[in-house]
């Protein structure tokens, strides 16, 4: 008689089945995606970009507990970096990977520059100030016509290519995104586990007590802001490369709010939660496309219901990727 047959082992087994099912479904979807019609691939690509954005913003909101409503500014920085350096606008055509690095750096820089003055502020004031910065950046992009093309945006961006391989068709972008999202997710997750990640958590829980144990909260928060900003910026580059057109319309306040919603509905502070949140807020409207404005109404009501029944999100903070892996492989 094996141990698995005893009643005592039955409970963990059922507990294991849910993560297993979720995981299997996710893998199946990932494997199946390249074989789907392009429309589906594009939808998945959009989903992946939002997951990337969610992972980035989650560092600030979920880990460090700072409400940032201007995240879209960094997304815009990345997108416009690509648009300016790989388009006929200034007839610059730098390689994709180089732009990715430049954008990550610029995003980080913007994050730090915005962060230095505002990080002293608390909660809601921080939220409105970041919102203000996001709007300022969008208005600038709309108005500095000689640089950004103003409301006309920048069109005919180069196709992304890495070592001679072109990434332009939806399926190619999909693979590119998959690699980047996976890499970023793993790095960010390891960051959360690191001493810096623990310091973020401490700041989130009690900023003053965190100072009391010797954490330079300003620096730690800046690190969170900078990391998050550079991820947002990377997402922007990929967005621009896949859309091959950027204009200020894509970087409105609503986008920032959508990403915050994604994180909170999915499960704040948890990468798996972001995936869940993105699936609901990005995929669901696509699935319900036929219902026109009714789908938006449904989404609004669903949001209220979800938040009321699961205020901490669909996937709890404690059910992180480590738990999933342990659940799968029974460690």
């Amino acid at each position, binding site marked *: 008689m094996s141990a698995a047959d005893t009643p005592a082992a039955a409970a963990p087994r059922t507990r294991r089945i849910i993560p297993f099912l979720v995981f299997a479904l996710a893998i199946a979807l990932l494997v199946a995606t390249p074989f789907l019609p392009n429309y589906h691939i594009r939808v998945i690509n959009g989903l992946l970009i939002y997951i990337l954005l969610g992972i980035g913003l989650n560092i600030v909101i979920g880990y460090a507990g700072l409400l940032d409503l201007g995240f879209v500014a960094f997304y815009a920085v990345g997108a416009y970096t690509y648009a300016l350096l790989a388009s006929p606008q200034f007839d610059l055509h730098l390689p994709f990977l180089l732009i990715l690095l430049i954008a990550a750096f610029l995003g980080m820089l913007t994050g730090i520059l915005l962060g230095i003055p505002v990080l002293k502020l608390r909660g809601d004031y921080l939220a409105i100030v970041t919102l203000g910065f996001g709007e300022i950046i969008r208005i600038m992009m709309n108005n500095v016509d000689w640089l950004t093309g103003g409301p006309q945006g920048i069109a005919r961006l180069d196709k992304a290519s890495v070592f001679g391989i072109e990434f332009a068709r939806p399926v190619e972008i999909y693979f590119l995104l998959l690699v980047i999202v996976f890499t970023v997710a793993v*790095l960010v997750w*390891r*960051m959360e*586990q*690191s*001493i*810096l990640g*623990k*310091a973020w*958590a*401490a700041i*989130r*829980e*009690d900023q*003053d*007590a*965190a*100072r*009391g*144990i*010797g*954490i*330079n*909260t300003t620096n*730690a928060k800046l690190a969170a802001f900078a990391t998050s900003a550079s991820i947002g910026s990377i997402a922007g580059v990929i967005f621009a490369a896949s859309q091959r057109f950027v204009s200020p319309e894509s970087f409105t306040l609503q986008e920032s709010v959508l990403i915050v919603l994604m994180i909170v509905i999915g499960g704040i502070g948890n990468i798996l939660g972001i995936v869940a949140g993105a699936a609901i807020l990005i995929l669901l409207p696509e699935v319900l496309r036929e219902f026109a404005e009714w789908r938006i109404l449904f989404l609004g009501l669903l949001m209220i219901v979800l938040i009321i029944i699961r205020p901490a999100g669909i996937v709890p*903070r404690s059910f992180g990727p480590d738990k999933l892996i342990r659940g799968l492989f029974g460690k």
Partner: protein
Amino acid sequence: MTLIFQNIRKQYGSNVAIDDVSTEFVPGLIHGIIGPNGAGKSTLINMTAGSYTVSSGAIVLDGRQMQSLKKYEIANSGIARTYQNIRLFDQMTALENLEVCYYPTEVGATWREVLWPPFSRSQRERRREACMEILRFFNLQGYATAEAGSLPYGRQRMLEIARALVMNPRVLLLDEPAAGLNHHETAELTAKLAELRSPARIMIIVEHDMDLVMTLCDRIVVMHHGKLLFQGTPAEVQANPDVQLAYLGTANDIDEIRAAAQDRRAKLGIRARQRS
């Protein structure tokens, strides 16, 4: 190695909370600060730890002026504290509450920790072992993976002290560590604190529980209306008429001081239960 208060003052507008207090704390001893409510005991602790600014005067540790440093810099120069109202990192596990204290020394290695798994493994192992040791000292090892906020109240008090000890501070400030604890827990706390007495450590306890203060402390500072009223050994304090007057106005019986302390404790106990 000493911690010296030189004529420190704390003012809120025209309201003077601490008025010209000078004293000295030495290693190897446990110092108590007592006084009626509003005497300025906690304000002293808060100023020492950098939670409040010092209006004038100086706080000197090993010849170094502390009062103008930022709070985290004060912590990093070896002053650790606990809080009157427990302030743990509620959603982090007990173990993580301790581990995070390694931030000042290990944050520089964050990139290696993120990018190089073998390094992070050994780093984490080391950190975990050191923290588990402290947890074991406080009999908290069973709670290592529980969220700090979910611990029983008494255990949270212990965990907070454990957290203050991780960096092996030279000055340990305990702000009413026995508040809200029952008799049994207070006894346990007293025993643990006695064990923490070390020739390399200055311990300062603000406490209303006179039993604890009188058994544990070697020196006692009595505060009254923001002024230093008296300092001396427990016996000297108990015998001093000024102290008795300060506590009770007219009474001359130390038992009534105790009663007042008990009353206070009961009140805090109620608050503690509501919290948890």
